[in-house]
């Protein structure tokens, strides 16, 4: 795989330097530089999506309100200017504008606010490869954000918060799903970028596509052999995924989610259907698109898109539950506090 990607890269580089001599060996006609890349294929003729990818991004899930319906920045300078000109709001006010502009000007995301300072482990922004993007939000369309919850889902969310408020330290079972290392809530589908460890690997075998995500070693085994979904009585946390190829795009449909699987904090209902589309668009990039349709949870369907970019190296093991010292520490702390 590595050798293959390397040779693709060489073709691209050669193409940009000397377009006339950069013909792919199989094409008879001279191709423009941008077309020098051809879709790699697995031995059975399917597009080869295999590789290790980063889906880290500085693009927020929801578009900042001050950008209105603007779906794309015109260029990097526009990104910086937009952030600097943004009206202040709340505590972050106008004083935060320079910081926002600085963050926007930093394509490596060194200024990205994440809840861990990964730079202390040498894992900070500049060491994480991100696909370049002029998108203003991962959620596409004029609104650029996850739609409103239905009244039932909003009530359920309020009930959950109230319960959480009162019982959050009662037991492991009342801690958040992510803290319990059941699912981080980003592994999907749809698979969402995380603040750190946004790394995944795709392997294709006969009739299956496997995707292992570093967070939290969650692995998707997606049949592409034409089978139907399993019985609705089986509800995996990552849902029940079935894939097929539409042209050169892998389309994966997922239903039958566990009713506690969260997407952006709110769990899917039994009506949820997620459709994902994976398209390799160049030697280094897989375009990832998704649509979430769950009429019981959100008032209308919504879609999102980002690119994942090839990285060297491997996906390392994230043994979340095995190393979950925090759970016992938090609970014993809560018990000790009660005794005071």
């Amino acid at each position: 795989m590595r050798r293959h990607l390397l040779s693709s890269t060489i073709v691209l580089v050669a193409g940009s330097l000397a377009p006339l001599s950069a013909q792919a060996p199989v094409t008879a006609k001279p191709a423009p530089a941008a077309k020098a890349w051809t879709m790699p294929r697995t031995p059975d003729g399917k597009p080869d999506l295999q590789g290790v990818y980063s889906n880290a991004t500085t693009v927020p899930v929801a578009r900042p309100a001050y950008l209105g319906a603007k779906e794309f920045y015109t260029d990097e300078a526009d990104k910086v200017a937009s952030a600097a000109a943004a009206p202040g709001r709340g505590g972050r006010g106008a004083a935060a504008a320079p910081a926002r502009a600085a963050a926007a000007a930093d394509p490596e995301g060194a200024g990205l606010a994440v809840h861990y300072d990964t730079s202390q482990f040498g894992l900070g922004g500049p060491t994480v490869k991100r696909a370049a993007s002029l998108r203003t939000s991962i959620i596409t369309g004029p609104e650029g954000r996850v739609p409103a919850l239905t009244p039932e889902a909003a009530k359920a969310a309020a009930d959950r918060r109230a319960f959480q408020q009162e019982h959050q330290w009662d037991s492991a079972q009342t801690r958040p799903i992510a803290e319990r290392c059941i699912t981080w809530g980003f592994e999907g589908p749809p698979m969402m970028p995380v603040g750190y460890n946004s790394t995944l690997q795709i392997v294709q075998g006969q009739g299956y596509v496997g995707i292992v995500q570093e967070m939290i070693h969650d692995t998707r085994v997606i049949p592409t052999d034409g089978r139907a979904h399993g019985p609705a009585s089986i509800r995996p946390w990552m849902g029940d995924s079935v894939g097929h190829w539409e042209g050169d795009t892998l389309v994966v449909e997922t239903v039958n989610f566990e009713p506690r699987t969260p997407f952006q904090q709110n769990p899917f209902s039994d009506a949820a259907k997620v459709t994902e589309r994976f398209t390799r668009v160049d030697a280094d990039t897989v375009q990832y698109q998704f649509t979430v349709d769950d009429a019981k949870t959100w008032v209308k369907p919504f879609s999102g898109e980002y690119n994942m970019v090839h990285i060297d190296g491997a996906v390392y093991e994230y043994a979340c539950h095995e190393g979950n010292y925090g759970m016992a520490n938090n609970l014993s702390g809560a018990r000790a506090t009660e005794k005071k």
Partner: protein
Amino acid sequence: MQIQLGKAQGRLGNWLLVAMAGTALLSLSVIPSPAQAPYKAPKTKDGKPNLNGIWQAMNEANWDIRPHGASQGPVYSLGAAYSVPAGLGVVEGGEIPYKPEAAAKQKQNYTDRLKLDPEIKCYMGGVPRSTYMPYPFQIIQGASNIMIAYEFAGAVRVVNMGAPTKAPADSWMGWSNGKWEGDSLVIDVTSLNDQTWFDRAGNWHSDALHVVERYTPIGPDALQYEATIDDPKVFTRQWKISMPLYRRLEKNAQLLEYKCVEFSEEVLYGHLRKQPLKGDSK
């Protein structure tokens, strides 16, 4: 015991005979000597033995990889439903060559197994135990990487089939570099941590464990699995386990999700609850 082992070998012999009969029918131009011709695995489109599929061991090794008789299970209230079935063992020669102090630790592990067995805690099974836990696993065979996804605890490893690479750190599922030797997939597994066991009987290893696995097709729906175990801190010599793995033939066979964290939380953190649960079965 030797007679029983002989029986097992006889069964393997039958497999081979059936497999060879198939081969002979398919390739009339070749006249193999029945005693020598091995099963020839079907190939993937890129010419490698095709190991794609959902596989599972069908034996009692997860209870104890050594030969063992039936016994009362560790939780009396579960009675006959969760007691220990007898097994012929999967250790070649039947004995694990522990150093004396290591043998004593195994006995202590067995005594304390309800507190110590990583399986109870929903910890990833490690290698080789994940292979013969009573759950299926799936091989997704790419040309340069082979994914092995295990149902238990959602454990996974991706076997690098390119130039061997080195692990950055120890891990539960180790670091896997693979290569083809004839029809066998040979995986060199290093950098395993010392937290996993071989079975529920407390057979154990240190972080010096080095496992070399061989997956060899012996019929259209069976692989022979061998693992050579080396751990100079714990054993006096290398030893080997061996067993067939069987393809899950159900038409709709599928690796299902067994995210067992929830099932282990009470045993791990129950003592830290605000309100203890009533009863031990819920």
